[in-house]
């Protein structure tokens, strides 16, 4: 079966997403082979749900977005794999955050990933995972110029073999 990609999207917003094709200059296929066995691999997670550590990290900048609705905060946060739901805040003006605050595993299933490591389904999980806020400027300027490079450096520091990206 094929899922309906637009089932939960307001009908009037469908033309903003459907049939837009690749970004200009990004028409070629993207591919990196996954060469290790899953059982020997270290896996990281990335969510675009705008999660952050309430006590130790600033929120994503939703005030600037309110002042400039076409801008979205391009920064990122690291989320320790052992973070408790009560440690986490959500800064994302485009989704209802109630379920995320009750159970952040719906966006960043770090605990389940640790479970899979314990069961040797994967080799290990990285000690921290990554969080961004998914609403961005159309140009993706901040992400292209800075964020993506910083994320790659961090993933390499943790010797991640694979990354699961979870859109919000």
């Amino acid at each position: 079966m094929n899922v309906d990609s637009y089932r939960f999207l307001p009908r009037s917003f469908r033309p903003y997403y459907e049939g837009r094709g690749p970004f200009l200059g990004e028409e070629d296929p993207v591919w990196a082979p996954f060469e290790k066995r899953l059982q020997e691999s270290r896996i990281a997670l990335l969510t675009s749900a705008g999660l952050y550590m309430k006590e130790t990290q600033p929120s994503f900048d939703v005030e600037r977005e309110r002042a400039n609705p076409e801008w979205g905060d391009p920064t990122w946060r690291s989320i320790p794999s052992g973070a408790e739901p009560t440690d986490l805040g959500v800064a994302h003006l485009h989704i209802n955050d109630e379920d995320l605050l009750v159970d952040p595993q719906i966006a960043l299933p770090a605990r389940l990933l640790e479970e899979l490591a314990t069961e040797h389904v994967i080799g290990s999980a990285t000690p921290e995972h990554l969080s961004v806020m998914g609403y961005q400027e159309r140009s993706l300027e901040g992400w292209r110029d800075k964020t993506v490079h910083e994320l790659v450096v961090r993933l390499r520091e943790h010797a991640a073999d694979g990354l699961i990206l979870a859109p919000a």
Partner: protein
Amino acid sequence: MMPAVAEERRAPRVVGVEFPFGHAFGMPRDQSMQRHVLELALRVLAGASAPGTRVDIDIEWPVPLREAYRAWQPKVASPIVKLILESGRPRP
């Protein structure tokens, strides 16, 4: 949530879920559903042999559509949605 868009944007491996926004791995407190999605994502990560691989998950969201459609949306419209609705113009 929108695997067709991920495909068009050239995501190399895609797992499609028909879940409301904000719920990539499923229902809150439903570890079985969340684990099902995570395990499939890992299998597709490691097992896909060519770019553009897409595998969809056959799970129906266990909440009536109208209720789920309302529930995922923020209580206050996002700034860009408010701007579009007020101006009647498309997003640039």
